């Protein structure tokens, strides 16, 4: 499992490859905070290659989103499969995040 960071213009795109869980969420947090530090303000997390996410994975997305908003930026999500969508719906986090069906649509939305 790993997190690949890629820049599309001024948008920082993070691919979550594998699981986003208690054992690796700090790595995602650090990578995104580093980009925020470097001036990134538009963040897209792409879940195309993601397996499952647990509550600490969700928690890290919530806390990153808050930190990014505090700097005037935004964190958006894309490509949640049906299982992952269910997780966001159960926890009402679908109301907190802007979630796009495809990477293209997410990139255009900023």
């Amino acid at each position: 499992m790993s997190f690949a960071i890629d820049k599309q213009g001024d948008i920082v795109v993070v691919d979550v490859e594998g699981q986003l869980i208690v054992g690796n969420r700090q790595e995602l947090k650090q990578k995104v905070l580093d980009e925020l530090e470097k001036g990134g303000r538009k963040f897209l997390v792409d879940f195309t290659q993601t397996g499952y996410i647990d509550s600490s994975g969700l928690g890290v997305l919530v806390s990153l989103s808050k930190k990014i908003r505090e700097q005037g930026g935004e964190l958006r999500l894309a490509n949640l499969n049906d299982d992952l969508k269910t997780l966001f719906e159960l926890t009402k986090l679908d109301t907190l995040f802007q979630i796009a069906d495809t990477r293209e649509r997410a990139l255009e939305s900023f």
Partner: protein
Amino acid sequence: MSIEVPNDVRYIESVIGLIQYECRLLDFPSRYCALNLPVALSEALSNAILRGNDDDPEKAVNVSLSATTQSIVIEVRDEGPGFDLEASTHDPADPANLEREDGRGVFLMRALMDRVEQFDDDGNVVRLTIGRP
């Protein structure tokens, strides 16, 4: 099937891999094997490691799985004193909780399983049950 692992969150993923494998062998719905069981088990394991066993590297966590044609029952045992399941369940729909970083674990476990039980048996045991639909 039973597994005992050191008290370290880095083992969670591979324990879940073994349980997912069993779930598929038993021909349970793919959503159960890809979402319900892995997420519920990740919650139970991380709470066992970080809460029950207080992140103490000297402790261990035990996972056992038993299955019938109708259901899968998983027990996660830590060396802690146990806890109050009801009092530990927080409603994420409560606006006060929406932007919190933590506190969704027990809720998710209960939402994704048919039954979640906590009992003490020389330590804390959380039993997760999911039935074939």
